């Protein structure tokens, strides 16, 4: 465990922007609950991105104005949302066809742990006494959708979240493509983890010290 200076690295908003910059115009994107939801607000002007929520809506828009909430128009996190012009509704089997059948282009997810081979753990800490609840997490990573993980680099306790091997129960094996943390953008390759970009003022060694797996630099 190595402590991390709170004033170092990207803010959550900057992390979301980093993800958004990697999503091209015309993409179909599923955003996980929590931090991933912020990505939608950072898509650059001129890019049109269509959001899928697995509970049956393609063309999800932002949260409604106060007083306009509709309890039958929600996202996968059960928050009130809106639908853009050109949206459409469908049932759950069709919705997961879009996921499992690789029609979605990008899925942005949070993580408990990511292993150096791309294994993802984000559904259960496996702690005794917790009730298992998987939702759509395993479906989202089961196809060949590009999986982008957005997460703080370490846990609140300073433990690395990027590890050699996940200790939490897996969501999927070798599924993560890119990891966006407050310290770096890290790509998962067959040869291992490669740092693509460092946050301002952050060194490679600083990131490596807070990572449980070996990092590589591009030549």
């Amino acid at each position, binding site marked *: 465990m190595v402590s991390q200076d709170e004033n170092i690295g990207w803010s959550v908003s900057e992390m979301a922007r980093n993800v958004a910059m990697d999503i091209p115009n015309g993409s179909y994107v599923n955003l996980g609950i929590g931090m991933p939801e912020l990505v939608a607000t950072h898509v650059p002007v001129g890019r049109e991105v269509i959001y899928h929520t697995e*509970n049956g*809506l393609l063309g999800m828009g932002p949260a409604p104005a106060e007083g306009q909430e509709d*309890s039958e128009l929600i996202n996968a996190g059960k928050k009130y949302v809106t639908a853009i012009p050109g949206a459409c509704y469908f049932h759950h089997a069709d919705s997961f066809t879009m996921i499992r059948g690789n029609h979605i282009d990008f899925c942005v997810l949070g993580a408990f742990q990511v292993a150096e081979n791309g294994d993802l753990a984000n559904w259960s800490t496996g702690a005794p006494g917790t009730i298992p609840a998987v939702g759509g*997490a*395993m479906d989202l990573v089961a196809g060949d959708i590009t999986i982008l993980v957005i997460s703080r680099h370490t846990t609140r306790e300073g433990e690395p979240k990027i590890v050699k091997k996940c200790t939490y129960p897996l969501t*999927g*094996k070798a599924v993560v493509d890119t990891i966006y943390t407050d310290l770096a953008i890290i790509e998962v390759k067959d040869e291992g983890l490669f740092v693509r970009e460092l946050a301002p003022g952050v060194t490679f060694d600083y990131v490596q010290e807070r990572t449980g797996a070996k990092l590589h630099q591009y030549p």
Partner: protein
Amino acid sequence: MINKIVASPAEAVADIFDGAVVMISGFGEAGSPIELIHALIDQGAKDLTVISNNTGSGHVGLAALIAHRRVKKMICSFPRTANSMVFPELYNNGEIELEIVPQGTLAERIRSGGAGIPAFYTPTSVGTPLAEGKESRTFDGKTYVLERTIRADFSLVKCRAADRYGNLVYNKTARNFGPIMCMAAEATIVQAKQIVDLGQLDPEAVVTPGIFVGKVVEVANPAEESKLVAEGRRYPW
């Protein structure tokens, strides 16, 4: 004449028997047939196996059915939410069984149940604890698990509008599991916000063809689960 319309939720759920397997539509409160569930509580059937994405919240609807110890086993993808306290308590006390299924696999198992497909292969859950004990197989170099279909004795479903043939249309994201659950039960029981005359539903826009529906009851002003929970209401009141 074909007329699937019945007069009350009580009449609609009258046939549900002890030990029945019951699918209940909804994703959280959206699409949850709360009046049918309350009628089922009044009716008294017990030892039910319930298939629904969640386990309800507060002490109304599905959570109330569970609280009344009518549910022996839940099959769902996500049994806990912000306001679910009933299920966690019973589960931690060992008073209710749980089968946890990835959401897309749950949807596909239900859909295949309606489609006469007894089993299918899927990539979801491969390499995770949820694939343990499941048969797996490789096709074209990728590994998949074998999943069996799910069928139910009854499905309880909420929709926006219905006609006497049982044709249904839904409202926004309240559609979710409704259409596939209609397909996968011996008897499908629907609560509709509105019953319309035959021919009023656009034949190009019907989501559930009437062939998948057994009984329809109009519930013009369904309760909103989240409001009842916020008010601390408990069923029966």
